């Protein structure tokens, strides 16, 4: 498995591994999980990451500085606030259109979306069947790896998305904590 993943470089679907090694899926998953744990536990220089049904080897974040030093490269730029906002909207509302992103943010997001497309964090995935047939976008596997999650289910919960949560917004647009009086009446509400 290690060999296959190394030779590939890019993520390998688990089905391919099962085919090559003649394993059933649960066994393969178990072995891969064990391999991933082994790398982490032994503080190896490589790590095994899972992105839904695919697996990939990558360098360990523990040695990032050393690795960068070896090649005299700089740390890649942090995602800008606009980029992060656009990415978040797409991540939670995918598949979605650029128009929706613009509407939520209240500004034109085409430049930012272009950047995210370039960095392969989002991709096109069809059209919405309404007049104009606008393009739909979703996040990529790369997105999962960069944010260190194995699937979209692992995204943090959106605050106040359930019916029993009412978000309060102050004059400057910041989220206000719920008044303590209200909380007593709604014990099930999650803290914001």
């Amino acid at each position, binding site marked *: 498995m290690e060999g296959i993943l190394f030779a590939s470089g890019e993520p390998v679907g688990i089905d391919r591994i099962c085919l090559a090694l003649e394993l059933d899926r649960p066994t393969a998953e178990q072995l891969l999980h064990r391999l991933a744990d082994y790398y982490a536990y032994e503080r190896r220089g490589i790590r095994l990451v899972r992105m839904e049904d695919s697996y990939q080897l990558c360098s360990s974040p523990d040695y990032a500085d050393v690795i960068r030093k070896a090649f005299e490269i700089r740390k890649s730029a942090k995602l800008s606030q606009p980029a992060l*906002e656009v990415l978040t909207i797409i991540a*939670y509302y995918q598949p979605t259109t650029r128009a929706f992103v613009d509407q939520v943010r209240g500004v034109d997001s085409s430049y930012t979306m272009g950047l995210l497309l370039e960095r392969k964090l989002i991709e096109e995935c069809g059209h919405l069947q309404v007049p104009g047939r606008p393009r739909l976008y979703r996040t990529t596997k790369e997105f999962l*790896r960069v*944010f260190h999650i194995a699937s979209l289910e692992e995204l943090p919960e959106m605050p106040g998305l359930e019916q029993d949560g009412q978000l309060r917004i102050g004059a400057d647009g910041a989220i206000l904590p719920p*008044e303590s009086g209200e909380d007593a009446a709604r014990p099930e509400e999650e803290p914001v």
Partner: protein
Amino acid sequence: MDNPIFKLTGVVQERSAEALQDFEGPLDLILYLLSKNKIEIQNIPIALILDQYLAYLEQRKQLDLEIASDFIAMAAHLMYIKTRMLLSLEDEEAQSEMDELIRSLEERRSKDTYARVRTLTETLGPMSEFGRNTMTRPPEPMQRGKVYEYDQEKGDLILAMQAVFDRTEKLAPPPTAAFREIVRREPYPVADKAKEILRRLKRGGITRFLLLFRGSRSRSELVATFLAVLELCRSKLIRLAGSDTDCTIDYEKDAPETPAL
């Protein structure tokens, strides 16, 4: 509109705590009702929403809680829209008010969503550190082997061909033998006939169309004559005039002397 709450006791009594819920503004209340009823903003049913809206206000009143004035104003506004729509579904005034309401609701919801998104980015931001600190390799170009290593039966080719045909639902193109009866080599060339027609016209002047066919010895000659006439017409070397029963052909006056056919 007296005591609408009785109609909705089932819905409203779900949790008495609901009435204690403080909404920032009337739009938030409406958005809450829409999401509770699982209705899209675009399809807002004014009567239903108005009923539930008033029910909420009534509950708050009964619990002795304050109701802000903009909530009352919105109630009046909804009632206005509803009554106009009752009078006439196509009422323009009501429609435009509805559109305005829908627009405001969408704007409010976008603001709400945006606020949530901004909170989330604070959590997601640090998560992207992993991506900044890990590196992956691009795939190695791999040479596919030149030798075909699989084992195949002869019959597989036929099966594959059959599958292709099944997919396209078309028959194989018919063999050329099938056309032999229909298409034969032209025994009487059209070009010759065309030249002959032109010679005739030059010598004899205007002539009748049908006369051209006199003296043809075979069917293919007749066909050749007809085609020649069409070709000469197309090349603007002759002119057809008259009716379908009495057609004449004449040499075009300003045609080139030795026409190339």
